[in-house]
């Protein structure tokens, strides 16, 4: 009877054919019921029930392979929704041993989703990956390479490295491409194991297939970031490739929204930005192609603007060229004037890069920048503050810091609050017209103390503690000013600072739970200098 029931079920599954999922009705029902669940609690109940049922069934002897495949998929589903299905991991591993592509592929998918590269079960998979990397069926090789990118770690690299290197010369481009990505991943995991093979990346740059070439740009970018000088000889090659891409010499399959291989263009622009930085000669090779891209770019599509933005980044990074900087400024202008928030955001970012080269370029866009500052979109606001931070000088520090303080008070995100606060203090400290101004500024804003409170609240941010420490040192050292009046005035403001500082600490200690109090005390006591300064100076001020 049992067997007949099984056949019936198999027939039902089979008759769904490719159907709409090829999975059983049971699975469909499960997904539907999750979709209709009205609360997370209900969803959790359903999934936990499902997990229990799978736990029983998966342990039964002689589960047909196709059924096991479905169980594994259901377990992937359960884990995706945040539950633990670790009892199923071993079955997924076993499935990778299967000869049929359908099952092997599911096994690999499941293990890459379930496991991380330091999991105990990985040793059971490495042999399979090794075997599959040598398979005649290129699709199996691809599946193994994809899995290797996730699951191979420093220890297991040697087991698969030779095959992966061999696969760089495989007749199928899909395999070569994945082999490049795998080798890159190995390099990231353990540079020492792969450093003797880096020349392979240079070779793949000349691969016939644009997909492989495009994939090779990923590892080359990382290598160049780490050691730019060793790759200066490739500037001309990269420029040549970029030129060909921009001239539409790549197959149409790489077109995206009327742009020629834009993702490849972007990668190349990033690489050239690194190679040309601070190097007049290298930059000289890049100017022409950059000019071409500026001219040809479609500014009506998102991807066109993405490429334009990357051009601006490149121009502002390499050795300055007046014409290109003008083109960049013009594009930035268009971004800022656009209706789209995304483009305004990019415009603000681009402006931030351009003012490093020519601070005056910001003047023209003041109104646009203020608009962004007042925009209800938080993301845009924050980006604009970053720009202001770069634009601060002695002449505008007060205005800018005032704005930043206002904003800081209005937001709820504590992590960000601390960040803005410490930046304000840094700016005030760096650009303050005079020390006296700085002290007065701190006191009048009761500002450093808000920072300090937040600092201890968030378990001590090193930057902020250092700022406070230095403020205290400044006070302790005095200013070397001869004017008695000025000095005592400063000292009395300093005294106020001490008092306020201690006061806010005490308030904080008594007003909060003991473990935070302990932390603060610990901080103060650990910073002996701070403590000494506080005590010494308080006494001095009392007696003077």
């Amino acid at each position, binding site marked *: 009877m049992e067997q007949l029931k099984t056949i019936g079920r198999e027939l039902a599954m089979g008759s769904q054919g490719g159907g709409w999922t090829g999975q059983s009705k049971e699975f469909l029902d499960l997904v539907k019921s999750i979709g209709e669940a009205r609360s997370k609690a209900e969803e959790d109940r359903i999934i936990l029930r499902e997990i229990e049922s799978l736990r029983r069934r998966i342990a039964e002897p002689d589960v047909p392979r196709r059924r096991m495949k479905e169980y594994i998929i259901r377990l992937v589903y359960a884990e995706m929704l945040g539950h633990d299905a670790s009892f199923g991991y071993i079955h997924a591993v076993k499935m990778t041993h299967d000869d049929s592509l*359908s099952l092997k592929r599911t096994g690999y998918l499941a293990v890459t989703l379930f496991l991380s590269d330091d999991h105990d079960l990985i040793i059971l998979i490495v042999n399979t990956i090794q075997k599959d990397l040598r398979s005649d069926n290129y699709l199996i090789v691809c599946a193994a390479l994809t899995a290797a990118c996730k699951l191979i770690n420093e220890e297991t690299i040697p087991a698969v490295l030779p095959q992966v290197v061999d696969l760089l010369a495989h007749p199928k481009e899909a395999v070569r491409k994945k082999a490049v990505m795998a080798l890159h991943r190995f390099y990231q*995991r353990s540079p020492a194991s792969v450093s003797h093979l880096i020349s392979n990346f240079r070779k793949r740059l000349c691969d016939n297939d644009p997909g492989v070439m495009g994939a090779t740009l990923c590892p080359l970018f990382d290598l160049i970031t780490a050691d730019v000088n060793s790759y200066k000889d490739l500037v001309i090659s990269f420029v040549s490739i970029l030129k060909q891409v921009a001239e539409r010499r790549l197959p149409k*399959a790489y077109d995206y929204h009327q742009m020629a291989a834009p993702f490849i263009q972007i990668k190349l622009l990033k690489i050239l930005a690194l190679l040309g930085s601070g190097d007049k000669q290298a930059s000289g090779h890049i100017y022409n192609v950059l000019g071409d891209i500026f001219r040809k770019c479609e500014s009506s599509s998102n991807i066109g603007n993405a490429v334009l933005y990357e051009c601006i980044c490149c121009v502002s990074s390499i050795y300055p060229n007046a014409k290109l900087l003008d083109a960049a400024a013009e594009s930035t202008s268009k971004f800022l004037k656009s209706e789209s928030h995304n483009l305004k955001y990019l415009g603000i970012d681009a402006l931030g890069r351009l003012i490093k080269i020519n601070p005056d370029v910001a003047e023209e866009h003041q109104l646009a920048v203020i608009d962004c500052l007042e925009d209800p979109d938080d993301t845009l606001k924050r980006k604009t503050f970053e720009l202001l931070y770069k634009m601060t000088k002695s002449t505008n520090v007060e205005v800018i810091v005032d704005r930043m303080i206002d904003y800081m008070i209005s937001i709820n995100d504590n992590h960000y609050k601390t960040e803005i606060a410490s930046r304000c203090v840094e700016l005030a400290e760096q650009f303050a017209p005079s020390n006296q101004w700085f002290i007065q500024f701190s006191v009048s804003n009761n500002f450093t103390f808000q920072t300090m409170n937040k600092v201890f609240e968030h378990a001590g941010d090193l930057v902020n503690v250092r700022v406070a420490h230095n403020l205290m040192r400044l006070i302790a050292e005095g200013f070397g000013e001869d004017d008695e009046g000025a000095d005592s005035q400063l000292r009395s403001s300093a005294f106020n600072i001490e008092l306020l500082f201690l006061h806010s600490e005490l308030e904080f200690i008594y007003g909060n739970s003991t473990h935070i109090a302990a932390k603060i005390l610990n901080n103060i006591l650990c910073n002996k200098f701070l403590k000494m300064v506080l005590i010494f100076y308080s006494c001095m001020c009392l007696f003077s």
Partner: protein
Amino acid sequence: MVRLYPNRCQLVGSAFISGFLISLVRSFIHFVILISRQGKVRLTKWYSPYQQKERSTVIRELSGLILTRGPKLCNFVEWKGFKVVYASLYFCICIDPDDNELEILEIIHHFVEILDRYFGSVCELDLIFNFHKAYYILDEILIAGELQESSKKTVARLIAAQDSLVETAKEETGSISNMISQAM
């Protein structure tokens, strides 16, 4: 003017950058999440290490952050020192702060267009019931957090090749005589 210490405006920034260079295990893309308008999870792919508990927290926080954003705002948000780029139906991709946000937005669209081609005008239901197929497709576009393939045609061809082999295998095992002999 007493300079207290050298200009450390970028102190936090540079600490971040030097940390980044020392550890070469970085991902361009840290994770890809697909959530519905009601915050239900449809797809999650993690390219950086995140424990199961952390994953739930991430999803909850991002849902709260992104689902409440109005329609005309930027498709980017800052979150915990990273950036998250999102697009409708709420595909969310988390990247490092220095990366090109608009490019990532277009990578999302590239993925959606490929799904569209594969399912024929993809809708949420397709992704709900065929999430494992969406994973196969994602694995052809992104690998180890980087863009692996920018040609739709190439991705479609590879997926089709895999599917047809899977179908053949299914047909072979699906024949009735096979089933009966398996049951014996």
